[in-house]
């Protein structure tokens, strides 16, 4: 057997999209091919990395061979590899959807030109977040993500989008700066920023301040209630593939950092966890209520993101006194489920809007055209988001509720059930619109609006549904390298 030259997949998955972004920017006419090519390449590398983690366990690469604490380490354990794989996988499918969507003759030149560089930049930043092992690196990656995400938000160039994008920009930068100040406090106290160095630090005022600043910053970036104000407009007004990326992937990066901080920075006190859980509850209720009131499809989906993020925080918070050693699994599964399903849902919503011509929920049933496949994708994604078996969302909820029940936290179970019912309520508003036929005179054409573009949301939705059956292996994989220290 030929000895393969040891390719450093960790570095590759971060820099390949970056290179792709630059190339796509330089070659605007070929941007989409460059873009898709880069994403496919990244996806292949990511699979190689996943395989490597699967066979060898956690992988570490010191960038430029400096090594911690001075240099920058990239590390992939089960959790980060999973999230990275999710990012590239979902990203690949969204790219395919985008390829079709932006090839649309009506799409302005600007979109076609800037989408790919921005998205590749975003991908690079996301992968960077998942593989980073020190705080400052995380800050930089967060900023990269922010800039790319804001760019994606305003891509359509419409006034609402720009306004929402600006708001997003403020929130995003402020969040990053809060994080940066936190980093400063950490360095002040400990003199180092790598995760390993944080682990054993005793509690101190500086670290407490750092934690407070970082939690606030990340909450802002991840749109945890009541810091969510920027999210619905930003996600609802972006173009469909951009919304899919923003909602599915971008918010996950800051969630991931919260998870990591919870492990490395300080043992979270029970009260703080309860506070986070409480905010999660607020997010579920408020997000759902707003989703119930939303008049436009994409706005509804965006508000549902607020609610779902709340649920992830609830999953995280049910740790209670036990710490995150167990509860992260539910949170991680829910993140995964949400990413896949929400991407499917935004793409499907975009397709529906494209076919019907508007996305006003009340008038969905007046349309003589029913884009069946997009509707089906939407429905399947909704099943996963609601958390019905056998979807991935169900697996996440199951672990969440099982854990809560074992520890006797009945209130979290009640919250989860309420969240489920509310999500049924707001999604069924849409589904009812799909299925009502007596509002228009002409015969309804079903099976209209078949398009290749439906392939991406449908695949994503089916994945969200079917991956639940693979929850056990996924969990086992996430546990490689014991991201949360659990006993081997």
């Amino acid at each position, binding site marked *: 057997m030929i000895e393969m030259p040891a390719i450093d997949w960790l570095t590759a998955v971060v820099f390949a999209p970056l290179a792709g972004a630059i190339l796509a920017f330089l070659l605007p006419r070929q941007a989409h091919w460059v873009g898709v090519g880069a994403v496919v390449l990244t996806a292949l590398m990511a699979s190689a990395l996943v395989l490597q983690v699967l066979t060898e366990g956690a992988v570490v690469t010191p960038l430029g061979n400096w090594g911690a604490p001075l240099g920058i380490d990239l590390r992939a354990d089960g959790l980060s590899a999973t999230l990275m794989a999710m990012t590239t996988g979902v990203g690949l499918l969204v790219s395919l959807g985008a390829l079709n969507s932006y090839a649309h003759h009506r799409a302005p030149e600007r979109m076609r030109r800037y989408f790919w560089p921005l998205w590749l930049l975003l991908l690079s930043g996301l992968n960077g977040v998942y593989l980073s092992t020190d705080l400052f690196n995380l800050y930089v990656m967060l900023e990269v993500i*922010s800039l790319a995400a804001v760019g994606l938000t305003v891509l359509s160039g419409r006034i609402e989008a720009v306004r929402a994008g600006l708001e997003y920009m403020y929130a995003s930068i402020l969040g990053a700066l*809060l994080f940066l100040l936190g980093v400063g406090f950490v360095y*002040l106290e400990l003199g180092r920023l790598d995760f390993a160095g944080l682990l054993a630090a005793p509690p101190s005022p500086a670290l407490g301040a750092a934690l407070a600043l970082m939690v606030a910053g990340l909450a802002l970036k991840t749109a945890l209630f009541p810091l969510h104000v920027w999210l619905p407009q930003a996600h609802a007004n972006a173009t469909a593939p951009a919304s899919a990326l923003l909602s599915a992937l971008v918010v996950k990066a800051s969630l991931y950092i919260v998870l990591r901080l919870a492990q490395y920075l300080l043992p979270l006190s029970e009260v703080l966890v309860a506070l986070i859980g409480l905010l999660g509850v607020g997010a579920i209720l408020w997000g759902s209520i707003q989703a119930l009131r939303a008049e436009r499809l994409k706005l509804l989906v965006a508000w549902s993101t607020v609610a779902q993020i709340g649920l992830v925080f609830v999953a995280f918070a049910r740790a209670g006194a036990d710490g995150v050693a167990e509860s992260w699994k539910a949170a991680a599964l829910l993140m995964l489920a949400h990413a896949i399903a929400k991407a499917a849902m935004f793409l499907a919503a975009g397709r529906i809007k494209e076919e019907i011509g508007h996305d006003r929920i009340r008038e969905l049933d007046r349309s003589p055209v029913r884009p069946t496949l997009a509707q089906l994708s939407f429905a399947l994604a909704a099943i996963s988001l609601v958390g019905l078996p056998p979807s991935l969302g169900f697996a996440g909820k199951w672990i969440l509720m099982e854990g809560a029940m074992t520890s006797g936290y009945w209130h979290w179970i009640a919250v989860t059930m309420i969240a489920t019912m509310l999500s049924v309520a707001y999604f069924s508003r849409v589904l009812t619109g799909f299925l009502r036929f007596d509002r228009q005179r002409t015969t309804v054409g079903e099976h209209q609006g078949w398009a290749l573009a439906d392939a991406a949301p449908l695949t994503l939705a089916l994945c969200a549904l079917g991956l639940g059956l693979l929850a056990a292996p996924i969990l086992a994989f996430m546990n490689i390298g014991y991201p949360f220290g659990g006993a081997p």
Partner: protein
Amino acid sequence: MSTGLIFGLTGLGVFVVGLCGALVLVDPLRRVLALKLCSVGAGFMLVVAAWKAPPEAPDPVPHALVITGIVVMISATAVALALIRRLHTLEHEHHD
């Protein structure tokens, strides 16, 4: 009161002023400026973190971080300003 503490508190103060501005102000341009203040404050903190008693050379790492931060912030500011301009143009068109 040590120099470090004074610098630190100043940095923190600048950050808090920026934070308040970012949260309270309405005018887009002033909000950008407030955010810039925040970043300056945060930079201060890192510089303080680098400071060591004179015989020793200051820690180079925070300096590197600050420089990176400044670069990042400059690009962010640029994007924000571009967006504000764009919004102005659009609003202008909108009103006509």
